[in-house]
């Protein structure tokens, strides 16, 4: 630490530049992780809110809620601690001057999918819905009567709830009858027992159903099969993983150049009896200091940037994840220093005498 810190103090500019590069890499990693997290919650927050363990869909739907269709009777044959029926359809909702993509959930008021109302009241009667509060930003308000793209039915927003987006669309929660009128129109009466899936809270997912035509899917698998979800998160995560590798290489190159410049100095110190281990620890300590400062500044900068971003940018910072990524960055930076440590160990103190 002694050598490491004194060298940084003496050669401030040189080390500030290295810290700057590490900071930019950290900034990019943190920002991408925020973006990955934000995009993920855009898709999954309504599902996360269920706190469910599995979803039962028809086998032929291939894990797609929209393509799955079963009857309430079939659903009630499923065995689990807690169950909630779910009907779902996508639509375009329109008030007087705004349009928005929405996802309509048909649920039962007394089952666990029922969201907590944060503003207004719960749906009570025909065609009343609780809406995701993100719709407020899109220009929708309590008491709005919205028209839907595919049907004559009109829905009235009577309440708002938080964290309710499904596959990037704000959710409208209504009762099963409302959902069926939207989905089937005049044929709603005849299809009164049709739903899309059944959401479970249970310890033993595999025991939930033994019917061939039904399939119980773990919630995480269900989310991964939402359209576009996996492609999106894979892309961003790959970028983050590559950045880890890149930062390791950058540190390795910088430190190696610095070390090569100091070979004769290290040789002199070794001739005087300073052990290789001490010099190696000093380089590791130096890397640790540089990486820690770089990551800390990068983190601060990311959070500050977050304050100034418009709401339309889907960034959501998850501090525990960012701290883990930060720690990983420090660790890969130190891994990059190993190359220089090997060089130091190999330096022959004889070089210091020059012959």
């Amino acid at each position, binding site marked *: 630490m*002694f050598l490491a810190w*004194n060298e940084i103090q*003496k050669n401030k500019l040189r080390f500030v530049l290295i810290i700057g590069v590490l900071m930019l890499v950290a900034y990019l990693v943190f920002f991408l992780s925020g973006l990955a997290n934000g995009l993920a919650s855009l898709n999954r927050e309504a599902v996360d809110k269920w706190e469910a363990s599995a979803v039962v869909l028809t086998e032929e739907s291939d894990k797609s809620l929209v393509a799955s269709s079963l009857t309430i009777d079939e659903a009630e044959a499923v065995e689990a601690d807690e169950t909630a029926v779910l009907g779902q359809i996508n639509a375009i909702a329109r008030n007087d001057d705004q349009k928005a993509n929405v996802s309509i959930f048909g649920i039962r008021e007394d089952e666990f999918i029922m969201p907590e109302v944060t503003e207004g009241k719960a749906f009570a009667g025909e065609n009343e819905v609780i809406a995701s509060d993100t719709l407020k930003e899109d220009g929708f308000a309590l008491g709005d009567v919205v028209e839907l793209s595919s049907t004559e039915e009109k829905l009235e927003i009577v309440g708002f709830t938080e964290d309710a987006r499904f596959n990037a669309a704000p959710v409208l929660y209504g009762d099963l009858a409302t959902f069926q009128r939207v989905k089937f129109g005049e044929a709603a009466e005849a299809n009164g027992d049709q739903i899309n899936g059944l959401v479970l809270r249970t310890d033993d997912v595999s025991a939930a159903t033994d019917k061939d035509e039904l399939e119980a899917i773990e919630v995480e698998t269900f989310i991964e099969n939402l359209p576009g979800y996996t492609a999106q998160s894979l892309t961003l995560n790959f970028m983050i993983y590559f950045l880890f590798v890149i930062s390791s290489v950058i540190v390795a190159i910088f430190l190696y150049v610095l070390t090569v410049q100091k070979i004769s*100095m290290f040789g*002199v110190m070794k001739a005087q*009896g300073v052990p290789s281990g001490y010099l190696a620890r000093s380089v590791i300590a130096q890397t640790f200091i540089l990486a820690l400062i770089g990551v800390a500044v990068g983190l601060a900068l990311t959070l500050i940037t977050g304050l100034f971003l418009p709401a339309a940018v889907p960034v959501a910072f998850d501090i525990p994840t960012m701290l883990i990524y930060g720690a990983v960055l420090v660790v890969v930076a130190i891994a990059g220093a190993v190359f220089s440590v090997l060089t130091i160990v190999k330096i022959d103190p004889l070089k*210091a005498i020059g012959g």
Partner: protein
Amino acid sequence: MTVLEFNQVNKTFGSGHKKVDALKSTDFHAEQGEMIAVIGPSGSGKSTFLTIAGGLLSPSNGEVIINNENITALNEKERSKIRLKEIGFILQASNLVPFLTVDKQMKLLDKVKKNNMNKEEVEQLYKDLGIGDLRNKYPSDLSGGERQRVAIAKALYSNPSIVLADEPTASLDSDRAYEVMGLLKEETKNKKTTTIVVTHDTRLIDYCDKVYKMVDGVLEQQK
């Protein structure tokens, strides 16, 4: 008391046609409090002699004994400990770490070794060498002579029994060179160390108790 002893030490580099006898079979001993010069043209083997004496290089044959300890058989890690404890190096260019102040040069040795000089001894040393005012300066702010005086302080700081100096006056003009040699001699007598100076500069031999000449790997005593 004998602090350094060579028994039939030789060093050969390469093999076959390219075989070079850098140091031919040599017996040598140095006593406590002696200032010894080894002179000779470059390539005569005097650096080989110094590096073997300092435990940086293992001899091909023979044994090297420092303070009654045979260092020939030791591995690099153990020899590094002997260097730290028994030997102070003063090198041609300067053996200072560029990013440490004079005071911190000494502190670095504290970090890797116990039983260095205490505060009063360091103050006395600084005073003797006339570097008391330089303690917070970096090597780049010092003149060549000042740097070499700090290098001497650094070599003596760890209370070594042997000081090995490789061309300590190479980068200095005559006046500065005599000054540095005078200081080395004084400290050798005061601290009862043994100082071996390797140089090609014959003007410096007046400062030494014994003078050896190295010619083609053969060491001969001249004085």
